[in-house]
Every structure is written in structure tokens, then in C-alpha cells.
């Protein structure tokens, strides 16, 4: 092992001081002179024709500076890749909560009053909320013009509400099923759930005197947002500047342009800065929650537990639009087949338009849905065959040289080691009380690729400023950059200050997401620090006339080779006569042979009188590279697990008549501090990793297998299985009653 001074240490977050003192500025905290409040009028109908919008009374209200309808934004469509979202509805509204009109006014209250004065006449139309209905040939089309949309991956031969399909697989399914001794087919459903970041979507747009479009937004991919907005409104990207701000939680949900295009139009029409903050009812009703899914898995297995065939179809309910996912489909769906060596496979994922709130990204997009189905299914097969689920998995998991069910080949494969580590830590196999059970599930995820830049500038006081275009939404990227720069320059962490860049500063940054932050940012920070260090050594050599090829930076000093002759680095910075800095641009999009496995084991007790599940313990094992910051790393694990617990047991946006009905945190339940069981973590060290420190990602892997582990534990405890999330007490009781019939 290489020994480090700052890397691998529990370094305090770079943004910690500002956050514990309340000084950290989020978009909603920003005030600009003359700033107006934006507010939206939303459709109460899941599907309706707009007959008439009368804004005259709103326009006449003192303090109102702009009132817009679909006529003012006609023809504009935006999205993260598929451009199908209008800033304001034109002829039709396609979901309850869709924006129909917007105002900008001098106060929130005036804005709300103006909204209340807008009259809209609707002709309600039949709505389709169920993707299975929407897929049928005779269903009406939500988007008849889908083939004309920018960003549709493949033109549809026949226009339908199914607008994108992805498939994975290998071998011959028929062969695999022909070999099988047992064939099992089951269907699983997962609910619509909200990311539940506590900072709602918010943005401020201001067109300045130079006609630059200045934006502050709760968006973790500002360069992508700049591209998306420029393309949607038809301006050069250079006119748009995204300014740094703190982001109050993301979990995948803060990558969409959301209201920014609309607020641009409000700023344009009002000629004033405009702020729009969604309230949480709007968040629950009309943001971009995790897609609900219906997944059917059919598998073939030999009597000895060898899997021979695996067929899965995941139907994602995209909602009314597809614009809030950068891949148009959700690639994580393939994980329904897991890290198992199944010879004959076919996995299909489709996206279907329906009259409901559009889906977006949430922590491992597609994975929690797929893994809930796949890992629930595996457990059931094992139990049918009378094989312990642990043994069954160990038999089928990939090892070194094995190709996964959907065709991935990894090196230094730690799948079995990770599962065994979880099993040890959870004391799997030790005796359990009545109605108590254990269940397991696995996931695997490689860190995503992307592009970023870092700048390192030595300061005359002996500190260093590191610049990054990444906005830290809580996962700790600023601290990553800090630690890498400090490590490479031989400084302590507190000597490195992070100052984020706006989008003018560098050409591009992919933004946070896909567990790429550490992979990409650590490489960029490393390269920038090395470049800055070379500059510093060059400057030192010029001052002292030393040979620049033989200098060593150590303890804030530049040494002449291995001698005791040195020069203090702040002296160099103060006296060299130029700014000492280093920059880097890293583009690393390589398809990796590195992945990270996760094995999780839940222990639950079930109250068989009420069906209520009590989570007793939850164990996570992860195979990791070099952990850059153990406390930050642990936070990603705990936070992911707790989100997974919510997904498993309580979270669901309930839709009645096309409308989300549980629109407060009282009715949309996420786990509180009192709901969290003992969390155990065990790390399996892998030699394999990415970049100068051999790192892996930890952002998403932590939450994708949790629900399946809990579902499997419930079956272990009481012998019944729940096939739909969340596993509520009522569903457990119903399953128990059915099994007793």
C-alpha cells in the first residue's frame, strides 16, 4: 500500500464551515436588486385541451411585470437529451401539475394573487395513467410528433407511446429454457418515488446589460444545462453563464433544466431578474421523480442451482415527457440480470408515455427497479430448489474471467468475496427468533466517465486555491479536490481553499452523476496539482539558479535534491514575479473493466398481527479501491442505505385520478432518524481501481439492492413474499392471509 498524508484521512468537508454556520448560500438565499418572484399556474387535469387562457386580470394587477402562456413560448421544447418538454403547455396538458401559465411579480404574494386571477378553460380528455394501457395499439398518442423531436435515439417505425427500447443479452434463450429443470416467471412492480432532497428546485435568471443570460440554479450539471438552454431558446452558449451556488441535495433529481427555460422567458419579458422556487407541493406533483416500473422475469435453472436462462422485460412509466433523463432510457435496467454468469439472456427496457408526472433520474437510474425484481427472483428460485440463497448466489456469481449475464467482463472480480464478507458481518446462518429473518441482495456498479477541469493557484500567504467547475451537491467533491491537491502539494487540507468556477471559466464539465465525481475529479485535481507543482519548482529554480530537474517539494519547502538546502514555498510565490498555477482538463470516458460490488443483508422482525416490518440490522459490504475520505465514504453508504430503506418500506407518490395525492412530507414518508436500525459496514479491499489512487465509486451502489434484501428477509421471516414496493404492513398482512387460505 502506498502511504498518504491526506488521502484516506477523515478530512473535514471543505464546505463544512460555511454549512455549520448557516453562511452557505443556496439559490433560494440569493437576492438581486429588482428581483421578481416567479410563480406558475399548473393544470389540475391529467389530460385536457386548453380552450382559452385569460390573463387580462393578472396583467392588470399592480406589481405584476410579466404574465406568460404557451403562446409566449410556442414551439420551444427542451430536455436533457430528448427535447419534448414545453416551458408552458400549448394546446394540451399531458399531466396534472403541468405548467400552463406563469407570472413574475414584485412579491411572492402578488405573484400568487396574479396566478389566482388567471382563468383557464379546459376541455378534460380521457387520461392514461397505466403504462400497460398506454402501450396498447389503440391507445391515443400523447406525442403524435415524437419522431420530430430533437434527441430521439431512433425514429419509430410506427409512432406509439413506447418511444424508446433498449435490449441486452447473449446466447439463445430457447436453448437456455430447454435445458432448464425449472422455469419460474414472476412480475414485480416498483412505485413512483421522489428524491426528497430538502431544497426544492430553484433558480434565478437575469439578463444583464451586456445581454448575458446570468443563471443561478439548483442544478448539478451547469454546463449541460447551458447547452440544453442554448439549444432550446436558440442562442449561443456563450451568452449563457451559470454561476456557482450550493445545491441542497440531488440524488439524481437536480440534473434537469426544470423551470430554468421558463424563468428565462419571464426574465426576458419582465426585463428584471426573476427567482422561482418550487414549493414542496409542486415538487411532489410536478418535478422529476424516480420512474415506476413493471418488470417480468422468467428464468430457467437446473436442479443443482445452475442458472441457464434469464429473460426480463422492464416497462418504465416515463410519465408525460421523456426529457428529464439524459440517456432517454434508463440503462440501469440491465442490472435486473445482475452480476451472474447466466449463458442465455435477454433483457429489454422500454419507456412509455402516460398522463402522469415525468420521470427523472434518481440514484442509480433503473438499477433499484431492476435489482428489486432480479434479486427477489433469485431468492425465490433458491427457496423453491431448497438451496440456501447464499449458496445459490455463490454458485452463480461471476468470478475472474466470467462474463456477466448482460455481457460485461471485469478484472479483479470481488463478487463472492463481497457477499461472503457481508454474510460474516451479518452473522448469516446464526439462529433467529420466531418471525425474524435475513435476506440478501447484490449490486454492482462501475464509476461513470466524463470530463472536468481543475485549476490550482498558489497564494502569497502560503495557501492554495483550487478551482473546480463542479458544484458540490452534498456528495463531497470539493473535499475530494481539496484532498488530492493537498496530498500532491504536501500541504495540510486546511491550506487548500476551494472556489468553484462559473461556466465561463472552462470549456466543459460533465457534472456530478453516475458515480463519476471521484473518478473524474480526482484525476483532474491530480493533474492540475502536478502542473502547479512543476511551475513552483521552475520558479524556485529561477530564484535560486538550481537545476529544475532535481528539486523536491516537501513540508512547504522546495529542497535542492536530497540536500538540506531549501527555499520556503511562500517565499517562491511572493518573489517569483508571476502567478504560479497549474490547470488540467481531463476527459476520461473509457468503458471500464473496473466495477464495484455491493452485498447487503437485512434482518427483519415481522409483527404477524399487523404485518408491520421492523428492520433490526442492515449490513452492507462493498468492494473498494482507495477510499479517499472514510467519513465521507461512510456517509454515502449510510445515506444510500437509508434511501433504500424508504424505497423498500414506505415511499410512494400515490396517484389518484392522475394527480399525486400525498403532497406533504407528512404523507410522503421518508425515514426519520428514529427509523434507522443498526447499520453495519464491511469493506473489501480491491487492488483494482481508476486513476492515480485506484479509486472506485460509492454514490449509487449503496441504495440499489436494499429493497430486495428487505423483501427477501421478509420471506425468510414469515414465508411470504411481497412483489411490489413499498412493502407496507398491509401488503405483508394480505400476503400472510393469502398463504393461510
Amino acid at each position: 500500500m502506498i502511504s498518504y498524508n491526506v488521502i484516506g484521512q477523515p478530512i473535514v468537508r471543505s464546505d463544512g464551515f460555511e454549512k455549520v454556520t448557516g453562511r452557505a448560500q443556496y439559490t433560494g438565499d440569493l437576492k438581486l436588486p429588482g428581483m421578481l418572484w416567479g410563480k406558475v399556474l399548473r393544470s389540475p387535469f391529467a389530460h385536457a385541451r386548453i380552450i382559452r387562457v385569460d390573463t387580462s386580470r393578472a396583467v392588470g394587477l399592480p406589481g405584476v411585470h410579466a404574465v406568460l402562456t404557451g403562446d409566449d413560448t410556442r414551439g420551444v421544447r427542451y430536455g436533457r437529451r430528448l427535447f419534448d418538454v414545453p416551458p408552458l403547455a400549448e394546446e394540451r396538458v399531458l399531466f396534472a401539475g403541468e405548467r400552463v401559465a406563469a407570472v413574475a411579480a414584485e412579491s411572492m404574494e402578488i405573484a400568487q394573487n396574479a396566478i389566482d386571477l388567471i382563468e383557464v378553460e379546459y376541455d378534460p380528455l380521457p387520461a392514461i395513467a397505466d403504462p400497460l394501457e398506454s402501450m396498447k395499439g389503440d391507445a391515443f398518442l400523447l406525442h403524435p410528433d415524437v419522431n420530430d423531436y430533437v434527441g430521439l435515439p431512433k425514429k419509430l417505425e410506427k409512432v406509439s407511446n413506447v418511444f424508446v427500447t433498449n435490449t441486452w443479452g447473449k446466447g439463445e434463450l430457447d436453448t437456455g429454457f430447454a435445458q432448464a429443470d425449472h422455469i419460474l416467471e414472476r412480475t414485480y412492480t416498483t412505485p413512483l418515488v421522489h428524491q426528497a432532497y430538502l431544497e426544492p428546485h430553484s433558480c434565478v435568471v437575469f439578463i444583464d446589460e451586456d445581454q448575458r443570460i446570468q443563471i443561478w440554479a439548483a442544478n448539478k450539471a451547469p454546463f449541460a444545462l447551458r447547452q440544453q438552454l442554448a439549444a432550446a431558446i436558440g442562442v449561443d452558449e456563450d451568452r449563457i453563464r451559470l454561476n456557482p451556488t450550493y445545491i441542497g441535495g440531488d440524488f439524481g433529481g437536480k440534473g434537469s433544466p426544470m423551470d430554468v427555460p421558463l424563468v428565462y422567458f419571464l426574465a426576458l419579458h419582465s426585463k428584471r431578474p426573476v427567482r422561482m422556487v418550487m414549493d414542496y407541493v409542486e415538487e411532489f406533483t410536478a418535478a422529476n421523480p424516480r420512474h415506476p416500473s413493471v418488470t417480468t422475469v422468467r428464468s430457467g435453472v437446473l436442479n443443482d442451482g445452475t442458472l441457464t436462462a434469464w429473460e426480463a422485460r422492464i416497462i418504465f412509466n416515463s410519465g408525460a415527457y421523456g426529457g428529464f433523463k439524459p440517456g432517454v432510457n434508463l440503462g440501469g435496467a440491465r442490472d435486473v440480470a445482475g452480476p451472474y454468469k447466466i449463458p442465455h439472456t435477454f433483457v429489454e427496457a422500454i419507456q412509455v408515455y402516460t398522463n402522469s408526472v415525468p420521470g427523472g433520474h434518481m440514484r442509480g437510474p433503473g438499477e433499484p427497479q431492476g435489482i428489486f425484481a432480479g434479486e427477489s427472483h433469485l431468492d425465490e428460485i433458491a427457496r423453491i430448489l431448497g438451496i440456501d440463497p447464499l449458496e445459490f448466489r455463490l454458485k452463480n456469481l461471476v468470478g475472474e474471467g466470467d462474463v456477466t449475464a448482460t455481457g460485461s467482463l471485469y478484472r479483479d472480480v470481488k463478487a463472492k468475496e463481497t457477499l461472503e464478507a457481508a454474510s460474516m458481518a451479518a452473522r448469516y446462518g446464526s439462529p433467529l427468533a420466531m418471525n425474524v429473518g435475513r435476506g440478501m441482495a447484490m449490486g454492482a456498479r462501475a464509476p461513470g466517465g466524463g470530463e472536468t477541469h481543475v485549476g490550482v493557484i498558489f497564494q502569497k500567504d502560503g495557501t492554495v486555491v483550487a478551482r473546480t467547475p463542479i458544484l458540490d451537491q452534498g456528495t463531497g467533491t470539493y473535499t475530494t479536490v481539496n484532498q488530492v491537491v493537498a496530498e500532491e502539494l504536501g500541504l495540510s487540507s486546511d491550506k487548500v481553499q476551494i472556489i468553484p468556477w462559473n461556466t465561463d471559466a472552462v470549456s466543459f464539465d460533465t457534472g456530478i452523476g453516475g458515480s463519476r465525481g471521484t473518478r473524474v475529479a480526482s484525476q483532474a485535481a491530480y493533474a492540475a496539482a502536478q502542473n502547479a507543482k512543476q511551475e513552483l519548482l521552475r520558479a524556485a529554480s529561477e530564484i535560486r539558479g538550481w537545476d529544475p530537474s532535481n528539486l523536491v517539494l516537501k513540508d512547504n519547502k522546495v529542497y535542492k535534491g536530497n540536500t538540506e538546502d531549501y527555499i520556503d514555498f511562500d517565499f517562491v510565490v511572493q518573489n517569483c514575479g508571476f502567478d504560479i498555477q497549474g490547470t488540467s482538463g481531463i476527459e476520461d470516458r473509457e468503458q471500464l473493466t473496473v466495477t464495484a460490488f455491493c452485498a447487503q443483508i437485512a434482518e427483519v422482525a415481522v409483527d404477524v398481527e399487523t404485518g408491520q416490518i421492523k428492520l433490526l440490522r442492515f449490513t452492507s459490504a462493498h468492494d473498494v479501491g482507495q477510499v479517499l475520505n472514510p467519513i465521507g465514504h461512510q456517509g454515502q453508504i449510510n445515506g444510500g442505505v437509508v434511501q433504500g430503506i424508504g424505497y423498500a418500506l414506505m415511499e410512494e407518490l400515490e396517484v389518484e385520478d392522475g394527480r399525486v395525492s400525498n403532497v406533504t412530507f407528512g404523507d410522503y414518508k421518508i425515514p426519520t432518524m428514529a427509523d434507522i436500525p443498526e447499520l453495519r459496514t464491511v469493506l473489501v479491499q480491491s487492488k483494482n481501481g481508476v486513476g492515480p489512487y485506484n479509486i472506485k465509486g460509492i454514490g449509487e451502489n449503496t441504495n440499489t439492492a436494499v429493497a430486495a434484501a428487505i423483501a427477501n428477509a421478509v420471506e425468510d421471516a414469515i414465508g411470504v413474499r411481497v412483489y411490489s414496493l413499498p412493502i407496507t404492513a398491509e401488503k405483508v398482512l394480505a400476503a400472510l392471509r393469502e398463504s393461510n387460505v
Partner: protein
Amino acid sequence: MKPFEYVKPNTLAEAISALDAGGEDARALSGGTDLIVQMRAGRNVVGNVIDVKGVTETNVISHSKKDGLTIGSSVPCYRIYNDEGIKKTYAGLVDSVSIIGGTGIQGRASLGGNLCNAAPSGDGIQSLIILGAVANVEGPNGARQIATEDFCTAPGQNALNPGELLVSLSVPEPESNAGAHYLRFIPRNEMDIAVVGVGASVVLDAEKKSIVSARISLASVAPTPLFVEAAGDALKGTEIASDSVEKAAIFAQEAARPIDDMRGTADYRLHLVGVLTKRALKVAIERAENQ
């Protein structure tokens, strides 16, 4: 929130006169944890907000063997569950006021407000009903008392006439050998609204063998908190070791009229009424036995 007039009277007389002047348009404000949410969401349009927290009578907690317990209508939950006398004598009340919302809510929300808000799920209301509490009301036409089981008339509606103020709640001193318990079923461990709640109180005989009287009240299974007299009557005179608890649970289920909503189906709620009634009674009896 829509604009309104705000006044904070200092005496009971001023408060009643302000409420009277405001009529249908006026609402008393205590903790505000329901009222402000409703006004913000537009579910409750109020022209005059009368902040009654300045009125002495709404802020008292007094407790004596003779007169029982009096709790002013503005007294927040935390003052109730932190009161040593109440903790000792009224465990069945502490059960509910300590689970209304989280700490921040309990710092403001009052038991009186919980009653006036008249939510079918109101946890505190069930405790009041099983303990036989009465509401002390004053208005322009004088004072009157309303039994707490008669106070809620419909979801969000109560028996107060315009101009009337709930001043305080009187809970009688428990008889010897009495015990009470409130519990609810929620998806989480804290910060939740009852899918079903059940309050039960019992008085045992001197030998602690049979039940002299009992009261049972149900949350979230009817348009109002539901006092089930028949369930209590079924227990009267029965031995605690008998199957009378089972019978009481059946009476409770028969009285319940739950609906399907996002928190649970009617069927599931009926089932929970049975389970929770038995559990509530078990604890109430244990408490009585330990008196």
C-alpha cells in the same frame, strides 16, 4: 397566505369579544401547527386571527386530588409531558401528547388545539375521551362545558359556536386502580399520522381481578374521533382473565366506519382496530394493576 388581521388580547374577556366581533371569520390561534398550515394551503380562510396565548386562563396547568387536572387550551404538548404530576397520574395522556409531531411541533402544538382541529386522527383527543375529560368553553353568552367525546362534530368541525373559545380542559382525577393507554399504528416510528389509533382506560375492582368500568376511543376510523361506549360496556363487570378483551375488540370493530385512503384501506383499518384495541386494553389493565 391570504392577508388577515392579527390581534393578541391579554384577557379572556378581550379574547371573547374579539372572537365575537370576528364571528365566522375569526379563529383562535394557539400553537398554530394546524391552523397556519391550513391557512397557507387555502383550506381555511380566516379574516381575523386571535392569538389567545396571552390569556392567563389558557396557559394554566393545575392539578389536585379534589379537582383533578386542568390544562389551559394553549398549553403546548411539551409542558404536559414534562409535568411531573401529569406523568405520574395521567400516563394515558402522556402517551398521546408525546407523539404528536416531532419536537418542534410539540414545542408549539397544544392539546386544546388538537381537540379544536377535530381531525379524526387527533391522538390527543382519544386520550381526553378515555379519561372522561370535559372542555371548558366561554363565549359571549357565558360559560359551558362540553364532554370531549361530543366536541368534534365532523372532520375539522367542532361544537364551538362563533365567538366561543375553548379555555381549558378538565380531566377528572383517576379512581384508584385505574389505568389508561393510547397507541396508534403508523408506518414509521415517529412523526406520523395514525392509520388507526386506539385509546383505552379501565378501572379495576379492589382485588384487581375484574373490570369496574372501561372507556374506548378510536382514531382514524370515522369522520370524528370515535368513543365506543359499547366496547367499554362489554368489559364492565368482567374478569380481566376472561375473553372480555376479545369481545371489546369486536365491539370496537363493529363501531368503526373506516374508509379507504392513502394511509390504508378500510379492511386493513378494521383489522387494526381489533389488534390495537386488545393491545391498548392489555397495557391499560397492566397499568391499573400496578397502581
